[in-house]
């Protein structure tokens, strides 16, 4: 269901008031006196600036939503896979998480750090440019072989949420075995041997046979880790 935010309502009201003032000025052609100046200050300055500010916030938030990313036809199947409750892809599993939810594209693909937002938005502009210059008329089946990440997906993006420090995470033998490689980024979390593909429908059919480790029976937690997690009663008071 489409949700109209209060900011949208405020922006619309401010814009409507501005337009009424400006149309009145254009139609009635009043004398350029003090009242006209005040009316135009409101119609050209105060209300439009308010409308622009709220629209900017709304626009910025809109660019973070999966609906926005999926509105280009070459991204639509990826967004649909995210929304598929039965999909086992990494993206879909994150879409079912309340924290990432409908912003799962942005949360996972955004760069982090001081200029992360700016760099992400610049990358987004590049995507828009590529879409309008290369992919706009290209069928998805053809485009999916050409679309690729500009650089390998960094584990640091995963580690913004999955710190690799929690006992629960370290209790997994596979995590412990690949701890340094995971932190160094030499083994990708989204590789076939680990958590599987983020977007399975972007992977050629022949390569999809692998079952992600997360979907296999869970390994037993050893006694030491279980104790550190408080999963067993150690008999201490």
């Amino acid at each position, binding site marked *: 269901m489409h949700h109209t935010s209060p900011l949208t309502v405020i*922006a619309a009201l401010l814009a409507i008031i501005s337009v009424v003032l400006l149309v009145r000025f254009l139609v009635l052609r009043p004398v350029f006196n003090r009242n006209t100046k005040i009316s135009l200050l409101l119609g050209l300055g105060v209300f*439009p600036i308010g409308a622009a500010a709220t*629209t900017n916030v709304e626009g910025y938030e809109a660019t973070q939503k999966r609906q926005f990313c999926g509105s280009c036809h070459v991204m639509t199947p990826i967004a649909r896979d995210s929304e598929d409750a039965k999909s086992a892809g990494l993206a879909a599993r994150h879409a079912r998480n309340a924290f990432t939810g409908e912003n799962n594209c942005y949360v996972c693909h955004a760069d982090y750090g001081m200029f992360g937002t700016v760099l992400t938005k610049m990358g987004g502009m590049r995507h828009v440019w590529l879409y309008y210059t290369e992919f706009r008329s290209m069928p998805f089946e053809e485009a999916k072989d050409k679309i690729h990440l500009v650089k390998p997906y960094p584990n640091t993006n995963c580690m913004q949420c999955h710190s690799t420090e929690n006992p629960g995470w370290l209790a997994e033998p596979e995590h412990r075995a690949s701890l340094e490689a995971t932190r160094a980024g030499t083994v990708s979390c989204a590789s076939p041997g680990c958590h599987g593909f983020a977007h399975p429908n972007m992977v050629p059919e022949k390569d999809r046979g692998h079952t992600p480790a997360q979907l296999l029976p869970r390994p037993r937690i050893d006694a030491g880790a279980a104790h550190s997690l408080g999963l067993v009663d150690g008999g201490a008071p």
Partner: protein
Amino acid sequence: MKHHLREKLVANVSGMAPARAMRLLRAASVLAIVALGMMMWSLVDPSPAPVLLALSVGQVLGTLSFVTFLAVVGWDVYREWRANKLKPEADEP
């Protein structure tokens, strides 16, 4: 001769400015309406084209219209100040 020229200047500055100012303000109003239209479009349809248009072209047009308004008002204030400054001198015998 000097007296006549000053009177003419006062009349020109007083009479010419509003007409030009009104033309500029009408253009600014149209620009602002177009910019606001783009912003509303991006709210109704938050897909890449409308959102990027609103955040780029919409912002430029809106800013341009407001700067035009400020320039016209500034010019008008200067015009009045100039007219007031010249008038007493022109009235001198």
